[in-house]
């Protein structure tokens, strides 16, 4: 088992024929991801990367049974693309696009609550179940099938953690990049709930960063409801307050959301916190083996 995506997932790529969409769809196909269709409005009826192209997500669902979508549509149109996928009944919508306006996400988030769709991202590397399905832009090669679930707000820092875990002979059940924006489709707790039910997952690595209180909320949830061991790392311990560190999410204000506050709450709730980003893998290994 795994969460969110597996070898049977039927993936539709939104923004399929664009530069980003084509590039990453090619890599996903090489990895073995089951891409069944693409959507680019106005290009319906064409074939691209040997897959059918449709004008709408609805057609891709009807004709090819797509149940997972990955969105590469540019930021001004990305919220619309996610709403389209949700309306078409796609179960898992992975939005890679960076730079979606916050108020667009407010609308998307509240609409999604009225549907059965689950959104991952935006502004994230995507979701990968190693050896089965890569739905996103992460380098497939560094991943390895295994029993560590990974949830992260960051992109490249996730790769760093995955790389360490793989090099130590452990692997990942599923790695989920939830994205660094202020409003995201799924938060740590949403994904922890999925890992809790997944027999393949023995331990979870949770990578957070400064800003917001998602890590603190997750820490309290873990203490009350989550039985598997969790290892965490919070980036941004040295970030000066009030400055935006790339991610819209990585901003500290009003004394809330600092790394030290997060680390304290995580530790108080029984979560193992790695001292440096280089210690994430080894901390997981130690905990799994003990």
């Amino acid at each position, binding site marked *: 088992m795994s969460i969110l995506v597996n070898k049977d997932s039927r993936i539709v790529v939104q923004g399929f024929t664009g530069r980003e969409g084509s590039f990453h769809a090619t890599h996903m196909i090489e990895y073995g991801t089951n891409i069944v269709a693409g959507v680019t409005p106005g290009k319906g009826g064409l074939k691209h990367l040997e897959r059918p192209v449709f004008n709408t997500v609805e057609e891709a669902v009807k004709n090819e049974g797509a149940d997972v979508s990955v969105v590469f549509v540019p*930021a*001004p149109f990305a919220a619309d693309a996610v709403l389209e996928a949700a309306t078409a009944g796609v179960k898992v919508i992975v939005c890679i696009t*960076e*730079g*979606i*306006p*916050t*108020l*667009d*996400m*407010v*609308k998307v*988030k*509240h609409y999604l609550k009225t549907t059965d769709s689950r959104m991952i991202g935006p502004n994230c*590397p995507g979701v990968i179940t190693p050896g089965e399905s890569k739905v996103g*832009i*992460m*380098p497939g*090669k*560094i991943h390895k099938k295994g029993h560590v679930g990974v949830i*992260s*707000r*960051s*992109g*490249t*820092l996730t*790769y*760093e953690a995955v*790389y360490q875990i793989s090099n130590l002979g452990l692997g990942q059940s599923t790695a989920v990049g939830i994205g*660094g924006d*202020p*409003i995201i489709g799924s938060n740590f707790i949403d994904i922890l709930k999925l890992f809790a039910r997944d027999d393949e997952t023995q331990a979870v690595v949770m*990578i957070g*960063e*400064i800003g*917001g*209180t998602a890590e603190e*909320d997750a820490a309290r949830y873990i203490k009350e409801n989550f039985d598997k061991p969790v290892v965490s*790392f919070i*980036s*941004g*311990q*040295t*970030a*000066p307050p*009030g*400055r*935006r*560190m*790339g*991610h*819209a999410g*990585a901003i500290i204000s*009003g*004394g809330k959301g600092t*790394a030290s506050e997060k680390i304290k709450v995580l530790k108080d709730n029984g979560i193992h916190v790695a*001292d*440096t*980003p*280089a210690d994430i893998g080894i901390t997981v290994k130690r905990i799994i083996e003990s």
Partner: protein
Amino acid sequence: MKVHEYQAKQVFKNYNIPIPEGAVTENIDEVTKIVELVGFPCVIKAQVYAGGRGKAGGVKIAKNLKEAKSAAKEIIGMKLISKQTGPEGRRVRKVLVEQGVEIKKELYLAIIVDREKEMPVIIASPEGGMEIEEVAAKNPELIYKVHIHPVIGFSGFHFRKLVFQLGLNKGQQKNFARLLKNLFKLFLEMDASLVEINPLIITGNDEVIALDGKIDFDNNALFRHSNIADMRDIYEEDPLEVEASKYDLNYIKLDGTIGCMVNGAGLAMATMDIIKYYGGEPANFLDVGGGTSEDRVKEAFKILLSDSKVKTVFVNIFGGIVRTDLVARGIVNALKGSNTKIPIIIRLVGTNEEAGRKIIRDSGVNFIVENNLPDAAKKAVELSRGT
């Protein structure tokens, strides 16, 4: 994106939110013209992005022309140092000259997006004119919040709740309601991430006026508001940060000695953290981004090396989308022709790492290649001390 108080107030005016009469100028002689229009007493306010201007001497009241001119003379060109500017302060280039307004009551009013509830929230307090963080810490019961669900938008009960909590009388209620409705409209239509009025004042005639104004706009939404991007004042930003933004590089200058170049915001912050963990100080945050091109890497490097405090550079690249060989070529090209003596530690991992490392090895430049993260960080710290 931040804007000046006078720009925020111009936006308020467009949305029929009452503001004091006034105008902005860089020129002391023009102050005479402006005070003719606004009368006395008037207020001269420094226009810089930082808060805490009053305590820093950037806001002065004048009762006559002589006082107004001398206040403007003092403020224009001053180095304003407040809690928010840091010790280096900010040079004041413009002043806002405004009519003095009779104040009966000072309120606080703001709108932001609440990340936890994932919707806009209106925040109001009867304790205006003070630092709101202090009010929130000492008297949290005096901070009133109303969340606005995107499905219903701004509705009558929202403002009723606030006006009764704020204890406003009939006349004040009417004016407050109109202002709040317009402010919320502004917030949505202009894609603000923060609007704040502190203080929002009530006059003897029950008028409600925005005595101060702050707006932050959502950078992600600038594509649909060309008029907002025009308000950007690059004089308020660090010159190196302005240069970086031209190349879409995410750069923030800090005070340390180790220049960092990393791809991805999370890894960039984590790299700063590990430097600090081993006792060093990062000179900057620099995220070269995901789809990094050779040119951008080259520019990034130039910016790093132009910071005179930098004693050593630490390049930490985890190639996912970005190919490490492209980064390597960018670095080598950036250093061609430069005779920098600054030691450069490079860690290249991920996509095409072998090709990338080969380019570095064959470059003839004396790079220090270290692919183990803690060892690379330790090395950078050691070299930054010049030992």
